[in-house]
C-alpha cells in the first residue's frame, strides 16, 4: 500500500485486520509527505475502500482525492463553544479555573484515535501554565451532520491556550494589573519542579515559564511597545499587544492511546547499519512529513557514531524495512525516534570499536571514531578508515580472531515512561493594529520564546515554530469551515476557505530556552505544535487589547472584519 500517512505501522495493522489479510502480507510504504498536520493520522473511508477494491479485483487501485473531496472528507477540527471562568484574589493570585466546553464532532467518532481527544485536551490543558488550586471542567460532545472532526496539529491546545489567555487577560484588566506582571505572578515558578500539584492531574518534569517570559519581554522591548501604544492611541491608531503562555504535550507515553486499547505504538525503534563502504544506513519508524525528521536523524546518527553527514542515509516510512514504530504525531518524532537513533548510534559505535580493536590488536578504550575514521582517543591520530574496517568485517572476516563476530547492525527502541507526556512550554506575543472603521486586523509582529529541550537543528526548530505560528494565525484570523443551514459545506475551495498567506504574515521572531528532559539521553522534547498552540490566543488578546479603549471585545475565531465590526457596534 503506497500511502500518504503519518502512521504506517498503524495502517498496516488496520488494513490487515479489517481486510482479513495476515499482517506480514501488508506492507505500507509512505514516501516523503509534503505536510500532514495531523490530518493524515486517521483512517479514511476512501482509503479503506481503495484497499478493499484492490483485494476484490486483485489489481492495483489508485485513489487521489480532488480538492473538493478533500475538503468534504478530510477531518475538520476545533468546533467548540466554551465558557471559561477564572477566580483570583484582589492581590492577583489565580485561585481556580472553571470551564464548560460544548464540542461538535460530526456524525461519528473517527477511527481509531476517536474524536473525543480534542475536547479532552481542552479540558486537560486549560489553565496549564498557571498555578491554581481549584479546577472544574465539563465537556459535552455532540454529533452533527457536518464533516467529522478529529485530531489536527496541536490538538485542543489552541482552544485551551486561547481560553486560558483570554480569561487571564480579563482578570488582569479587572484588577488593574499589567498583563505581563499578572503572568509573572501566576506562572508556575521555575524552581517548583517536578510539579504535580495541579488539581487536573497534569504532571510537569521541568518547565521554564519565567525564563521564557523574561526573555520574551526583553526581546520585544515590552515597555517601549506599551509606551508607543499609548502614544499612538492619542493619534487614533489602535494597536494591541497580546501575550499567550503555553504548554504543549509532546513525547507521549503509552498513556495516550495504548492504555485506551488502540493498537498504536508509543515506542519507536531505529536500526543503524554500517555498510562495507563505511556509509551508515539509518532506518526509523518515525516518518518524514516535511518537517525534517530524516535530517535530524542523520545528524544524531552521524554524531553518535562519529561520521560526517554525507556518509549517512536515512530510510523512513516503510513497514517492510524500518523497526516498528508509531510514526509522526503529538510532537514525538525527535524526542522518541531521535532517542532510539541516539541509543542505536552509541551501541553501533561501541560495536565498531570492537571490530577496530580486533583488527588493530589494540585496546578498545584507547580508540575513538572521528570523521569517518577510527582514531587514537588520545592523539586523534588516524588508525583505520571505516571503509577499510567495513571491508575487513564483511569480506575478510577470516582475518579476524577465530571467535570474533562483528555486529555492525544495531537496533534500539525507546519508550517514554516516567511521565505520561513530556510537556514543553513557551510564550508568544502578538502586535496588531486594528482599523476600527473597517474591522481589519493588521499583524505587525509576532514573537515566540519556546523551550523544546535540546535543540538539534536550530533552523528546523525555528521554522517549525514559525510554520506553527502561521497555522495558529490562520485559526485566529482566517480559517473557518462554513456550512449552510442544511449542512452543506459552503467554502470547499482554496478561494473561499482562507488559509494564511505570506502577504498578511508578520515577521516572526523566535528564541529558545533549553531545558532538556532528563528522561532521555538526547534531552529533546517536541516542537511541532507549540507555534500553533499559542498563536491564536496571542493574536486574539492583541486584538482585544486594541479594542479595549473602544469598549469592544471579540470572542469568536476567526476574528473576521464582520465580527470585529459587530463587536464595535458598527453593524
Amino acid at each position, binding site marked *: 500500500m503506497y500511502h500518504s500517512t503519518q502512521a504506517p505501522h498503524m495502517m498496516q495493522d488496520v488494513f490487515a485486520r479489517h481486510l482479513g489479510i495476515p499482517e506480514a502480507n501488508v506492507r505500507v510504504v509512505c514516501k516523503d509527505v509534503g505536510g500532514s498536520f495531523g490530518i493524515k493520522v486517521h483512517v479514511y473511508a476512501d482509503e479503506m475502500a481503495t484497499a478493499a477494491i484492490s483485494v476484490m479485483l486483485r489489481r492495483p487501485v489508485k485513489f487521489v482525492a480532488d480538492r*473538493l473531496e478533500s475538503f468534504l472528507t478530510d477531518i475538520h477540527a476545533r468546533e467548540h463553544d466554551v465558557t471559561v471562568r477564572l477566580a483570583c484574589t484582589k492581590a492577583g493570585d489565580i485561585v481556580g479555573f472553571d470551564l464548560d466546553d460544548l464540542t461538535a464532532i460530526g456524525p461519528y467518532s473517527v477511527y481509531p484515535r476517536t474524536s473525543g481527544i480534542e475536547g479532552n485536551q481542552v479540558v486537560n490543558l486549560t489553565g496549564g501554565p498557571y498555578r491554581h488550586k481549584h479546577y472544574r471542567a465539563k465537556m459535552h460532545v455532540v454529533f452533527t451532520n457536518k464533516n467529522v472532526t478529529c485530531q489536527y496539529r496541536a490538538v485542543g491546545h489552541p482552544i485551551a491556550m486561547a481560553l486560558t489567555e483570554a480569561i487571564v487577560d480579563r482578570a488582569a484588566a479587572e484588577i488593574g494589573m499589567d498583563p505581563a506582571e499578572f503572568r509573572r505572578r501566576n506562572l508556575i515558578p521555575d524552581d517548583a519542579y517536578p510539579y504535580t500539584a495541579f488539581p487536573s492531574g497534569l504532571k510537569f518534569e521541568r518547565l521554564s515559564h519565567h525564563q521564557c517570559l523574561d526573555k520574551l519581554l526583553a526581546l520585544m522591548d515590552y515597555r517601549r511597545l506599551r509606551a508607543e501604544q499609548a502614544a499612538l492611541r492619542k493619534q487614533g491608531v489602535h494597536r494591541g499587544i497580546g501575550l499567550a503562555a503555553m504548554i504543549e504535550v509532546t513525547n507521549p507515553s503509552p498513556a495516550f492511546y495504548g492504555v485506551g486499547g488502540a493498537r498504536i505504538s508509543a515506542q519507536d525503534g531505529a536500526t543503524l547499519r554500517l555498510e562495507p563502504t563505511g556509509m551508515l544506513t539509518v532506518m526509523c519508524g518515525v516518518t518524514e512529513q516535511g518537517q525534517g525528521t530524516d535530517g535530524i536523524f542523520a545528524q544524531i546518527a552521524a554524531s553518535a557514531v562519529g561520521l560526517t553527514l554525507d556518509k549517512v542515509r536515512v530510510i523512513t516510512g516503510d513497514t517492510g524495512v524500518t523497526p516498528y514504530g508509531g510514526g509522526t504525531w503529538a510532537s514525538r518524532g525527535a524526542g522518541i525516534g531521535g532517542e532510539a537513533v541516539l541509543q542505536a548510534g552509541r551501541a553501533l559505535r561501541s560495536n565498531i570499536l570492537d571490530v577496530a580493536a580486533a583488527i588493530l590488536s589494540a585496546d578498545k578504550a584507547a580508540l575513538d571514531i572521528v570523521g569517518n575514521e577510527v582514531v587514537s582517543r588520545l592523539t586523534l591520530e588516524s588508525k583505520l578508515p571505516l571503509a577499510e574496517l567495513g571491508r575487513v568485517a564483511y569480506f575478510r572476516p577470516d582475518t579476524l580472531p577465530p571467535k570474533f563476530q562483528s555486529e555492525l547492525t544495531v537496533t534500539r527502541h525507546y519508550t517514554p515512561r516516567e511521565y505520561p507526556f513530556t510537556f514543553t512550554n513557551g510564550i508568544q506575543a502578538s502586535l496588531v493594529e486594528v482599523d476600527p472603521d*473597517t474591522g481589519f486586523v493588521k499583524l505587525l509582529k509576532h514573537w515566540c520564546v519556546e523551550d523544546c529541550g535540546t535543540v538539534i537543528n536550530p533552523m528546523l526548530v525555528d521554522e517549525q515554530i514559525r510554520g506553527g505560528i502561521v497555522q495558529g494565525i490562520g485559526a485566529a484570523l482566517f480559517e473557518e469551515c462554513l456550512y449552510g443551514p442544511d449542512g452543506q459545506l459552503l467554502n470547499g475551495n482554496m478561494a473561499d476557505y482562507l488559509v494564511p498567506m505570506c502577504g*498578511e504574515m508578520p515577521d516572526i521572531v523566535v528564541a529558545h530556552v533549553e531545558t532538556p528532559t532528563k528522561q532521555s539521553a538526547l534531552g529533546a522534547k517536541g516542537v511541532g505544535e507549540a507555534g500553533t498552540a499559542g498563536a491564536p490566543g496571542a493574536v486574539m488578546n492583541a486584538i482585544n487589547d486594541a479594542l479595549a479603549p473602544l469598549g469592544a471585545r471579540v470572542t469568536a475565531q476567526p476574528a473576521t*472584519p464582520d465580527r470585529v465590526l459587530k463587536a464595535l457596534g458598527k*453593524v
Partner: protein
Amino acid sequence: MKPPSFAYARPGSLAEAFDLLERHGEDAKVLAGGQSLIATLNMRLSSPALLVDITAVPGLAGIAVAKDKARIGALTTHRAIERSAELGAALPLLAQAARHIGHVAIRNLGTFGGSLAMADPAAEWPACCVALDAELVVARRAGERRVRAREFFKGLYETDLAPGELVTAVEIPLPGRGHRASFIELARRVGDYAIVGVAALARPKGETLEDVRLAYLGVGPTPALAPHAMAAAEGKPAAGAAAAAQAALDRDLKPAADLHTSAAAKMHLARVLTGRALRALAP
C-alpha cells in the same frame, strides 16, 4: 483537479475565430489569459467542447494614448496596464486598481478584455470602466459595434455580448488634466477578490470636487455606479463631499451578503471606502 476533456483551437485571425464560434455555438468558449476560465474548468463548473484561444489573433493587444482618449486592446495583460507609464499619467486609476488584481503571476497572464467579458462583479476592471465611462469595442463577423461600459454589464457574469461576438478593445475618454483618481478595495488577503471596493474620480476646482464619479465592486451582481452619491458630492469640498456621498449611498447600493461578510457590514464598508476615496481626491 483536472478539467473535463475539450478540443482546442488557436485561430490566427478574427475571421477564423468567428468561423469557429459560429460552427460550435454554445459548445465553444473563448480563451484569452485563462485566469478565470481554466479555474472553472478545473473545478468542473464548466465543460465546453472547444476552447477558442484568441491569443494568436494579431492586433488585439496594446495600449495607445491619444489626446482625448486611450485605447487598450482586449488582450493587453493586467501587468502591462500596471506598468504602462503612459497610462499611469493619463489614467492613474488603472494602475492603482491593477495592483489589486490577483497576484503577479495572474496579472502576467490575465487580460483586460477577458476580465470585462467575464464580468465578475467583484473584479476591478468592470468598476473602473464604469467609473471612467469607457466604451467597449465589440467585433462580430458583420463588423464592429460599440457599447458603453455602463450598459455592458447586465447581470451576474452576464454582458451585452451576443453569441459570436468578441471584445476587441476598450476606448476610455480621458477625464482631463488635473483630474484625480482613487481606487481602494478591502480584501482579507492580498490578491483575494475584494469584500468591497471603489473606483473614484474627480476634478478638483479650488477646494471643491467636480465631475465626481464613484463606481463600486463587490456590492451586487454587476459593478455599480452610484449616481445619488455622485450628485451629493458634486461641487463640495472633499470632507463635505465625503459626508454627503456617504449619506446618499444607501440609495445607490443594495449589497448582498457574501460568504464571510454580512450585507450590513458590506454597506458599512462601502460608506467607509467612499469617505476615504473622496478625501484622497482632495487637491
